[in-house]
């Protein structure tokens, strides 16, 4: 390339009229193919159950159903970008619901109970973060261990019982509306927006990409890898605590078994579908959200078309593996 044209393109870059580089193109292509997949799913289920699928009620059902998964999956996206993995989120949701229920029953305070649920999540995230960073334990093993332990804690707190919540103020979170849309969906949108800004427009987000992409480079560039990793697990824990609040509000109870129905699996599936590389450093919040939408439509569609529950489980597992397969194919082709 000769000097003038190089200088020209640089000037262009500086005034902001930047051509998309290959990475952005790939992300855009990936998100576009997710949109197409989503459209195909909608077309299929829409054709199979045209009477129900497009009803406002059903669409709101989907929104309600993906709210919990949505916050978990976008948080999981951040964990995976940082080079980690958090399998314990389902158990943290369970711990959070029983803590919230217990505190509501004791104090009658919605605020206190929500604070308790999120606090439990933060502590759980801190534990995960410390085991992974200070302990140097592989993230999969560490959070597999805490997944079991946190589930146990949830049973201990609740003595194995479901704790009903009758508090009206609290239940509003689950069935209330604002501007005609459920509060749970507003919460989902707020969380996703916050994560999007974090990963796209903040220094912290950029550093998380750096640490996940190459921890050695990040450390030699003066980043405090450990602090960021612990921070990411705390974020994941806190989000799981928030998801616990959504679940407790919707079901009107704190149940130690809640979140044990493969929530972590679905969250990871959505993140990987959304373009996360399990090796870290790659992925987007928008992609994660699209992954969640696909899962949500698939789940809803399978229920509407009366696919038996057991087969639904098989379908979800297959989807996770298919998502990884596709990602691997793309990695091999584009490097």
């Amino acid at each position, binding site marked *: *390339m000769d000097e003038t044209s*190089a200088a020209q*393109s*640089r000037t*262009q*870059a*500086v005034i*902001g009229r*930047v*051509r*998309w*580089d*290959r*990475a*952005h193109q790939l992300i855009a292509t990936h998100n576009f193919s997710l949109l197409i997949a989503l459209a195909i799913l909608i077309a299929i289920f829409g054709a199979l159950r045209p009477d129900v699928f497009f009803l406002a009620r059903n669409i709101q059902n989907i929104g309600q159903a993906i709210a919990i998964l949505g916050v978990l999956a976008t948080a999981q996206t951040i964990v995976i970008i940082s080079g980690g993995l958090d399998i314990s989120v389902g158990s943290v949701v369970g711990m959070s619901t029983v803590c919230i229920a217990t505190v509501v029953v004791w104090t009658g305070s919605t605020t206190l109970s929500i604070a308790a649920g999120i606090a439990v999540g933060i502590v759980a995230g801190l534990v995960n973060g410390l085991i992974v960073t200070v302990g140097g334990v592989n993230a999969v093993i560490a959070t597999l261990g805490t997944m079991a332990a946190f589930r146990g804690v949830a049973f201990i707190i609740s003595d194995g019982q479901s704790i009903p919540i009758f508090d009206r103020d609290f239940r509003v979170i689950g069935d209330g509306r604002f501007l005609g849309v459920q509060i749970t969906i507003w919460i989902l949108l707020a969380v996703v927006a916050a994560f999007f800004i974090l990963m796209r*427009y*903040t*220094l*912290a987000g*950029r*550093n998380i*990409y*750096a640490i996940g*992409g*190459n921890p*050695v*480079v*990040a*450390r*030699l*560039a*003066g*980043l*405090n890898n450990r602090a960021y990793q612990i921070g990411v697990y705390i974020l994941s824990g806190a989000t799981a605590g928030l998801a616990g609040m959504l679940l407790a509000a919707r079901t009107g109870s704190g149940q130690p078994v809640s979140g044990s129905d493969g929530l972590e699996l679905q969250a990871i599936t959505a993140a990987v579908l959304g373009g996360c590389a399990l090796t870290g*450093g*790659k992925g987007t919040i928008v992609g994660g959200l699209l992954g969640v939408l696909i899962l949500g439509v698939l789940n809803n569609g399978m229920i509407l078309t009366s696919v038996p529950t057991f087969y639904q489980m098989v379908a979800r597992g297959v989807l996770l593996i298919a998502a990884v397969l596709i990602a691997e194919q793309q990695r091999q082709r584009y490097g």
Partner: protein
Amino acid sequence: MQEVTPLLEFRRVGKRFGVVHALSEVTFPVRAGEILALVGENGAGKSTLTRIMEGEYQPDTGDVVIDGAPVRLRAPVEAHAAGIRVIHQEPDIFPDLSVAENLFVGDLRRVAGIFLDRRDLAARTCALLARFGLERSLSPWTLAGALSAAHRQLLEIMRALRAGVRILALDEPTSSLTDDETKLLFSVILRLRSEGVALVYISHRMPEIRALADRVAILRDGRLVACRAIAELPEADIVHLMVGRPVSTLFDRPPTPLGEVALETRGLTTTRVRDISILVRAGEVVGLGGLMGAGRSELALAIFGQDRLMAGSVMVDGAEIRLRSPADAIAAGIGLAPEERKSQALLLMRSVAENVTLCVPDRVSRFGFLSRAAELLVANEQVERMRVKTPSLDQLVSNLSGGNQQKVVLGRWLARAPRVLILDEPTRGIDVGAKAEIYRLIAELAANGIALLVISSELPELIGLSDRILVMAAGRIVGEVPRAEATEQRVLNLAMRENLSQEAA
């Protein structure tokens, strides 16, 4: 030369990546029993051409012709089947398998259908080793991971030969070899030539090209600018053709006035270096010489806070710094361009702008939020200053050539205006043009009062750049050579004498 059908021929080969023409209209033959040197600056298209040879890439236009017939190589397997092998700088070996298993992987004979026939394997391995005169230096059952770089390379060459290679390309095979190892490799290469193998030899080292090649093909910006007998081309002409402008191959940095002591270590000791006490003044370039494994990079990592200190201290501008991590070193004004650009310095999947601004968070963000305008401004400043050739600031760093990648790393530190800069092999794998620019930059930095510690295995470079040279061996400083007395011989003697006495002890 007699006109026989060449074994391999590139006919008007072209390859594009987006808007970049990596190769266009490249045509040249490689004949059986000749060594063709392929030279060019980094980014000139050599790697793309070897990848096409190997079936990793397919040409957009033109043909690869073998024995006079165009072929389509869609994957490395097909290239191997056609008798083509490329030996890369980092050989692909299985470190946890033995020499014999590495050689015959995919062709292991069995006893009774299940058990590995170790006797047969040993016999075949010994026969192969004997063919190259390596039966004394290599044992069939040594683990490949324990071999020296040269032996790994030879291992891969032998594996290629066993599979019946007819066309062999070697990509900078000597970059991590000692002189003796290089001689050994050369004798193998010459033997292959006499056996009628067509060889493509890629290197930046002019003496090697002179010693080996029959002909030389020169690429510049993806085009073939010359393909002639080596005897017709003096060295200066080759360099001139590569760069497209005359370049002085010699470098001599004018000495600059020295300031106060900027970097000092006292009794620095880690698990890998012992009792290091050095001084570097502002405006001074101190060279760090020594053989591979002498502990030079390890010293750099210790000063930079990456390796934990067991004893000793590091001072910047006379003040001792608390060194718990690289972040502390950076805060104190130290910068490090590490030895391995790709695995230690660059975020390959991120943009040029992001890589340049990685260490200056304060300049590109406010209250934790990134400012795109500030980022582009800071990045552009360094890209202009370093003359990085990139289509845009948003280009992925992995798409740049080695020289431009190194400039990105240097730009990252210059954006911080450090007091002390440690450069570990700053010109490794970089073409002459980019080298000259990096030398110019080092001179400029020293003139601006930055203290520089430069590690290099290329002695002429070390001597040309440094005000004085510290020589390391076995994790210690074993001697100091002032600029006026610096010769390759003296530095080498110091580096090797220590090794000898160590072995004697």
